[in-house]
């Protein structure tokens, strides 16, 4: 759909755990064709330290109710203020932004890999992929048991695999330590979003396995729609804007040292 800047109504703000909030938003215009991996850019009011908008992945879309959700992890004042937003308040949002993940084909087997709040774009991706007849596996990594959220929700769309850095839930270690990322599983595609070191590790594994792999980058952004040129990442074709030419990139196009 066309890019918009509009006030969205908060339908729900649910605290999921100590630092994650699921905020459901309803626009007055009709949602259509939101690609998994696209994001929104939100104006945070009443925060003297938050000058620029804050970008968040579109977590899930409900076309029937005409709502979508974002998953917000509190890391600074901007996300803190957002976490306090209440039902019926409005948020000034620019959306939808960026390019989503490339669509898998019917019959393919894909692995969605989310680390920390990088799980955010994966719900919409899991839902859409299952809808078109793709076999979806979801690998979620977190620091500790209490950091794992939305596991049940993900399991509607495919088998969920878990890791924790401290071994309190699932496999002890990083996502790349999980057996699901080993050669025997033969996925057609990896889709990954999470902290940079994790995405690098996943990309390295993908290269080794010769599996197609897309990653969603979270570069710092000033505008979010391609005019400031602040959010660039190096690609084979020179600097590209993460906000408009990403945030999703095929790892083969990136100049990562892996």
């Amino acid at each position, binding site marked *: 759909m*066309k*890019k*918009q*800047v509009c006030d969205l109504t908060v339908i729900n703000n649910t605290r999921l755990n100590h630092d994650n909030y699921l905020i459901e938003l309803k626009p007055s215009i009709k949602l259509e064709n939101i690609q998994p991996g696209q994001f929104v850019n939100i*104006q945070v009011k009443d925060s*003297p*330290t*938050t*000058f*620029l*908008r804050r970008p968040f992945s579109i977590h899930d879309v409900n076309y029937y109710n005409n709502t979508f959700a974002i998953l917000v992890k509190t890391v600074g004042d901007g996300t803190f203020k957002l976490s306090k937003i209440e039902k019926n308040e409005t948020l*000034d949002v*620019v959306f939808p932004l960026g390019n989503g993940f490339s669509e898998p084909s019917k019959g393919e087997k894909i692995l969605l890999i989310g680390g920390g709040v990088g799980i955010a774009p994966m719900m919409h991706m899991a839902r859409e992929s299952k809808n078109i007849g793709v076999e979806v596996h979801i690998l979620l990594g977190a620091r500790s048991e209490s950091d794992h959220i939305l596991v049940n929700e993900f399991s509607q769309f495919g088998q969920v695999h878990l890791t924790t850095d401290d071994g309190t839930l699932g496999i002890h270690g990083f996502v790349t330590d999980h057996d699901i990322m080993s050669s025997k599983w033969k996925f057609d595609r990896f889709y990954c979003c999470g902290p940079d070191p994790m995405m690098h590790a996943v990309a390295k594994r993908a290269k080794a396995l010769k599996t197609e792999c897309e990653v969603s980058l979270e*570069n*710092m*952004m*000033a*505008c*979010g*729609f*391609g*005019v*400031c*040129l*602040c*959010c*660039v*990442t*190096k690609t084979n074709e*020179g*600097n590209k804007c993460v906000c408009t030419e990403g945030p999703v990139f095929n790892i083969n196009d990136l100049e990562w040292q892996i």
Partner: protein
Amino acid sequence: MADLSVKIHKLELKNPVMTASGTFGNGVEFDDFIDVNALGGILLKGTTLHHREGNDYPRMAETALGMLNAVGLQNKGVDYFCKHIYPIVSKYSTNVIVNVNGSTIEEYIELTQRINELEHIAAIELNISCPNVKEGGMAFGTSCPMAEQVTREVRKVYDKTLIVKLSPNVTNIAEIAKAVEAQGADSVSLVNTFLGMAVNAETRKPVLSTITGGLSGPAIKPIALRMVWQVAQAVKVPVIGMGGIASATDAIEFMLAGASAVQIGTANFNDPQCTIKIIKGIEEYLDRHKLLSASDIIGKLQM
């Protein structure tokens, strides 16, 4: 309803609100958000003779009601511009102005000559104030003799409206303004960004790949406003004011201080529709104060 039109040399602006170079892309990125033709004019992103990759990431740091950027004039060069961007921006009925950058006088001249051939480009803005490039850029704008020289040489090869964009990183901006006016500038625009820096205390490293970058946004408004006021008193050519403008009130303050038109930069990032709101706000202000035209506030600060 008040008459919002203003003149910058030969340019007729339907209203005094333009966009600042580097913050508005080529305009087309805003087509989804606003009617670009409703603006007084648009400044395209900084163009150079040759393709430039710009600086490494990170290029941006958020500061107290402001931001630092270190883009470093990333652009595909003038050939690409003429072939691919010019045909698109030619569709706009508003004034389309190219922001011209060089590392040497020769580059400025050659680039200007190329732009001069483009019928739909109403004016150029000579950027002698970019703080984010190693060669040229701000060096031209912080030295009177260099500012004079580049203006004089470019003037020789350009007969449409020549705007010179000044750097605020100087002791006496009015002096530079007078110098470029004397060499034939038809207008001066100010300010470009202030050279600033951000440090990450935890990593003990500069935030920007280039260490320093250019500060823009509301934080700089009081200094920019002072400079516009000083320059407007020093020169006869029209002054285009900018620096932290985010509302109609801000724009009106710059006009009272002597700006014939304003440019909106960083505010476009926060609100892609702000330019339209600012135009409306100026109109409302004039009506409320029973003023008939925008020119009734230009330089009308009461002492």
